């Protein structure tokens, strides 16, 4: 149903292998596919048109790079353009010279303003501000109560002089809130307004009145990431009616592709400042243009995956997991089982696979994946003897039959698992040995990881003494790496992802998985891991 852009383009270009340059027809054929992909991601039509025009122009002039095939090249261009549009300058909140700084939230009904207000307040307090939430949504039944509860959870006082439910004047509430904030030393005021439609002139006037009454330093337009083509109209209507300085995207934890982000940015030129990614008050972050770009193109989201892991697992678990990667021992079925169980905690396997790049063409199969199948996998592994688990090579025909019987599965399932496992093992071995494939020696990986780093160093020393020491390249790399790590530990530098992770080649995944080469991963080269 929803194909990824890369898959589409791959099919367009499949007949063009070996061409040195993109011809006009190629570009036109491509343009159609990009158009469809963007439209399916809910990017607004006028924006799509402009965008396609730019892509066409750039594609024409582009020299064909040797490293990338035409499809990849176009995707690279598209991705870069997307990031450029989405990114621009990163916006910080403009604080007023004379406190309080006033932040006003506006948006459609149900966009998530009240929830976002709470999140924003919490986020601001974490930066040593003393925010005040103002309940200026007097329209919706009990919006005031909701804000009060949210405020309580965020540990922020709420200014709510009016009961709401249609009673009271929001303009007056907003005005008085400023005085209240000044008296009570709140340096930031977050005003939650009622949801309104762009076409509702009366309500838009009210919003404008609130704005005029408090002259906010920032007006943030809150918009649902699931919004469709209407994003353009709404964004424009709010821009005309109230005006805003930045945009907050909500409900990004769903699977909407969020083309609206692109539309709004493109139409209004206002940057997207915040992304809200969940129901808890902490699920709130600054906006990452590069990830959004990948998301719009449905190119997988490894970073989100990693972050999710970071949120879900505690230190010890992660270390255990990492140690299997860093240790010198061969990857065994036990490790596999253990990691599988951990992965399972991250959520339904289908969702996780969906985050992997290049899974678009498998979407249908992914949709059919049932988590129950994981139980079967577990059963198969647990039906093996410890010996078999640590040395799967010994699993011969009769053992397979026994395992299948023991776990209530078919022999073919066992076969399949074992084959998959060997592939994974091979990759794992490759990663441990020559550094990662395409990740030369993982430079610049120092930083905070105390235990992990030590373990790794030890592993490498051992490794050096073993068969791999004959490789002079490797030895040199390790030397360099150690030096670098020492240096970096001193400087406590921000750890960087290895360039190879996104830049050049990718770790080779089992062939069955990518379906013939992984369409490029999102560019992670300038990604910084968040502070722990």
């Amino acid at each position, binding site marked *: 149903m929803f194909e990824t852009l890369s898959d589409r383009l791959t099919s367009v270009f499949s007949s063009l292998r070996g061409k040195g340059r993109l011809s006009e027809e190629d570009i036109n054929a491509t343009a159609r596919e990009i158009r*469809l992909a963007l*439209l399916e991601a809910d990017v*607004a039509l006028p924006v799509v048109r402009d965008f396609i025009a730019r892509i066409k122009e750039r594609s024409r002039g582009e020299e064909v790079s040797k490293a990338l095939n035409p499809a990849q090249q176009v995707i690279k261009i598209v991705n870069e353009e997307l990031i450029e549009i989405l990114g621009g300058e990163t916006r910080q909140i403009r604080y007023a010279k004379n406190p309080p700084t006033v932040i006003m939230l506006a948006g459609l*009904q*149900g*966009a998530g303003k009240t929830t976002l207000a709470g999140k924003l307040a919490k986020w601001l307090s974490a930066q040593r501000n003393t925010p005040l939430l103002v309940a200026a949504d007097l329209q919706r039944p*009990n*919006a005031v*109560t909701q*804000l009060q509860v949210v405020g309580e959870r965020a540990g922020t006082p709420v200014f709510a002089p009016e009961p709401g*439910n249609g009673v009271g004047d929001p303009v007056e509430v907003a005005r008085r809130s400023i005085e209240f904030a000044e008296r009570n030393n709140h340096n930031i005021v977050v005003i939650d307004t009622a949801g309104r*439609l762009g*076409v509702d002139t009366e309500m838009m006037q009210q919003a404008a009145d609130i704005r005029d009454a408090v002259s906010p330093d920032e007006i943030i337009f809150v918009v*649902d990431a699931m919004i*469709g*083509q*209407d*994003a353009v*109209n*709404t964004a424009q*209507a709010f821009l005309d009616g109230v005006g805003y300085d930045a945009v907050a995207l909500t*409900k990004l934890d*769903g*699977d*909407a592709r969020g083309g609206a982000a692109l539309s709004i940015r493109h139409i209004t030129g206002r940057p997207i400042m915040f992304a809200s990614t969940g*129901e808890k008050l902490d699920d709130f972050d600054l906006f990452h243009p590069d990830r959004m770009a990948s998301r719009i193109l449905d190119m997988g989201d490894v970073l989100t*995956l*990693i972050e999710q*892991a*970071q949120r879900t697992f505690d230190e010890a678990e992660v*270390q255990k*997991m*990492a140690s299997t*990667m860093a240790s010198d021992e061969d990857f065994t079925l036990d490790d596999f089982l253990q*990691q599988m169980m*951990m*992965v399972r905690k991250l*959520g339904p396997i289908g969702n*996780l*696979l969906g985050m992997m790049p290049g899974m678009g063409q498998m979407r249908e*199969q992914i949709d*059919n*994946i*049932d988590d*129950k199948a*994981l139980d079967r*996998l577990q059963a198969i592994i647990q039906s093996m003897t410890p010996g078999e688990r640590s040395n799967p090579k010994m699993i011969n025909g009769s053992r397979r039959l026994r395992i299948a019987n023991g776990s209530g599965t078919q022999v073919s399932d066992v076969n*399949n698992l074992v084959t*998959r496992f060997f*592939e*994974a093992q091979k*990759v794992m071995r490759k990663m441990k040995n020559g550094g990662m494939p395409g990740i030369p020696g993982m430079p610049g*990986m120092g930083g*905070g*990881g105390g235990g992990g780093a030590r373990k790794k160093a030890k592993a490498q020393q051992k490794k050096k003494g073993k068969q791999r020491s004959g490789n002079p390249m490797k030895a040199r790399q390790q030397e360099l790496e150690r030096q670098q790590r020492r240096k970096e530990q001193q400087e406590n530098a921000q*750890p960087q992802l290895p360039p190879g992770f996104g830049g050049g080649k990718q*770790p080779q995944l*089992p062939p069955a*998985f990518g379906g013939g080469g992984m369409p490029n991963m999102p560019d992670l080269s300038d990604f910084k*891991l968040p502070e722990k």
Partner: protein
Amino acid sequence: MEIYLYAGLAIVLVLAAVGGFFLVRTRRSVAPGEEDTAPEVTRAPEPTAPQDREKDGGADLLPPAQAPPAQETAPAAPAEPELETPPPSAGRMVRLRARLARSQSALGQGLLNLLSSSSLDEDAWEEIEDTLITADIGVTSATQIVENLRTKVKVLGTRDRDEVRALLREELLAQIRTDADRGVRTAPHGDRPAVIMVVGVNGTGKTTTTGKLARVLVGDGRTVVLGAADTFRAAASEQLQTWGSRVGAPVVRKEEGADPASVAFDAVARGIADGVDTVIIDTAGRLHTKTGLMDELGKVKRVVEKKSRVDEVLLVLDATTGQNGLRQARVFAEVVNVTGIALTKLDGTAKGGIIVQVQRELGVPVKLVGLGEGPDDLAPFDPEVFVDAILG
């Protein structure tokens, strides 16, 4: 920090392996004897005993005096509104027409201008398709509509504005599928009330729709009990309480964070005990990607079913929703077997074209439309009116 990277890599790798396992497996299609178990099957939850906080007497099981009217009760033939507030459901169509005409005429106008221009060349057709896409109808549906229209225009050799318009109307109607039963089953059967569950993602207007629906029913002379099974969002049950008290419908609610299934169960139990006509259960908004929450929703329904059949599961879809609406509908349909769609916020500039795809793919009819924040801005969905309004 580094260990996270390692862990990430490990996860990716394991996922790759596990994924490979599944995908290869599924591609090879069903292994005999091992069918994938439906996601519905989870441990059977034990309903908490129906201890009611809003003291209700108890077991007076008098069968409701009113004879149940015909099964289908789309608020079409309104009874006399005896309660003070809500007006009956008649006359809402006029409002619907007016609202839609305001919000959607741009689309209709644009299309008509295109269609009636003297030469329908490739560009014009493309533009028609684009216009449909702008209404969130979706690329596939838009392409199909344009294809069909094109064939018809070619066959009939029409250029006449009215004829083309009629063709377009026909085509849009065909897409919206007129034959589906759009009645909301609100009539009690025997001594049991009808049970309606309202589900949807966050912020689509579930609570508001629940309140409005209760109002319509009360206006039509029914008795209603509301169940505030949204125990998650702050002040959600207060919001419903406000709606309920406006029309004098009792609201069964519990403290925040209570088990939604038990609230729903209590609401139905209360409904049965009081002999009301309809029980409407408002559930918490949940993104369809959150499996845990979707399981919870499945549980709510199963628990309610221990007490009474669930007659209607209304999925509330926001008209502004884009292509994601289809995914939402698909997942919700899978988990709770959606029987109808309520399309809300149609009073804005959004066209709600996503319902075309949803109806086509799932065969679930749109039954209600929400047209604003006013307490009576809920109307039954009528495809003819809908399409006519689109065409201005």
